[in-house]
């Protein structure tokens, strides 16, 4: 369902972020991507929803060649791909509910959304997703009143409201303390299993990757240097990913 064929990404400043990635991810997988900062983890997952356009190669997501999609087609693809971020990226001055309703923007007409005319089912669906992440009572609170962990749960609810087939998470727990991080990771795992959402998570914490993923991909300097099960992730492999100074 996600297929990278010799994907290369070169940024306008000449930096080669991905150097020929070949990767196949099947439906329902839970994949952790690990690697040192600057290795291309963020770039890799951003190519999947076209936030970063690939320079060379072929990238197929849900049967579509992402690099060939026009703006309109790309939007249709994006609404089936949820994404959460390290800094949560909620609109701080808006209510939690309105933030979650952002997940419906791909489905309602621009004009209606401008006047906040979301269908009743959409609002109920948004509330039910807040319920799923355990913060329905915060629906009418301004987003910036919530703690970091709660904000990330709102972000997950926003993604769920898209009814996604794929969930991309870019360092989702890097700015959270360990217990809160666990809560967030547990939700991602839960929705992966219950709702069959294919999930790709960038993590810099190897132990967290081991604990949650059934498949781990290690990248270094824009290349995949490891792709296997958590138990195959030996010390030697970690040295290959992170270089010899990284102890884990």
């Amino acid at each position: 369902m996600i297929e990278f064929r010799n994907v290369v990404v070169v940024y306008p400043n000449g930096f080669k972020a991905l150097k020929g990635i070949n990767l196949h991810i099947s439906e329902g997988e839970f994949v952790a991507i690990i690697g040192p900062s600057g290795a291309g983890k963020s770039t890799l997952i951003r190519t999947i929803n076209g936030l970063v356009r690939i320079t060379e190669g072929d990238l197929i997501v849900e049967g579509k060649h992402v690099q060939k999609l026009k703006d309109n087609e790309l939007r249709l693809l994006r609404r089936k791909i949820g994404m959460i971020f390290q800094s949560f990226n909620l609109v701080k001055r808006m209510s939690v509910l309105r933030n979650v309703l952002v997940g419906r923007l791909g489905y309602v007409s621009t004009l209606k959304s401008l006047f906040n005319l979301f269908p009743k089912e959409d609002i109920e669906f948004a509330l039910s997703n807040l319920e799923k992440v355990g913060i329905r009572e915060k629906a009418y609170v301004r987003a910036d009143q919530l703690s970091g962990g709660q904000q990330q749960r709102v972000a997950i609810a926003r993604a769920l409201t898209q009814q996604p087939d794929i969930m991309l998470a870019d360092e989702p727990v890097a700015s959270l303390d360990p217990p809160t991080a666990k809560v967030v990771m547990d939700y991602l795992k839960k929705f992966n299993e219950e709702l069959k959402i294919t999930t790709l998570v960038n993590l810099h914490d190897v132990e967290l990757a081991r604990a949650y993923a059934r498949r781990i991909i290690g990248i270094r300097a824009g290349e995949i240097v490891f792709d296997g099960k958590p138990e195959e992730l030996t010390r030697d492999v970690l040295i290959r990913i992170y270089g010899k100074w990284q102890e884990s």
Partner: protein
Amino acid sequence: MARVLTTKTKVKIIAISSLLTILLIISGILIEFNPIAFIKGIPRGIEFFASFLKPDITYFKPILTKLIETLQIALVGTTIAAIISVIYSFFASHVTAPSRAIYFIARTIMNVLRTIPDIVLAAVFVAIFGIGALPGVLALIFFSFGIMTKLMSEDIDAVDRGPLEAVKSVGATRTQVIAFAVIPQVVPNFISYILYTFEVNVRVSIVLGLVGAGGIGQILIENIRLFQYDKVSMIILVTFIAVIIIDGFSEYIRKKIL
């Protein structure tokens, strides 16, 4: 002890400061700035100010009519300019402009308009439309468009890009991204800029009256020309109080919003 400045820096400082001093002296001579003339003028100045000490209170009513006209000019000018500027600023920000070409054109127009002084705008519109409130309103629209688009477009440039990326990632259209991720971030500042511009416009519209663009400035210049300083002082007094009240009020609202 370590030397704080190198010899080279010292020479530079001396060279630059002597150059500036010479420029200052030459400029003074060229514009015939004469300290003696200034001192000689002091008694006449005292006389002038003395006549200000007895403002003509009976003149209050005509002043009030003209003051209201000034406020109306400022209000209409600011409102129209605000509507245009809010929309325009999205084209003049690199975050929201539909294309680089449009961004470049929008910024060029904005920067050219900003170079024209308000009083020149007023004089030109008075020449075209004749004396009255209309040229005043037009001049204010152009003038405040320059201020507001500059402030607003730079505010849009500085929005947090995270929420933009998030809203884009759900498959939102460009308009939806602006409505859901950009506008909520800039609204408080936009309101503040509009109120600030209104404050400035009240003062500017007084000055614009001097070249015939309606309002209290018009009767101010008429009375100065007729040497009716008691009336002039009453005008200044009333204006002074009005400006203080408006600034205070606007400040109060701005604080409430932010």
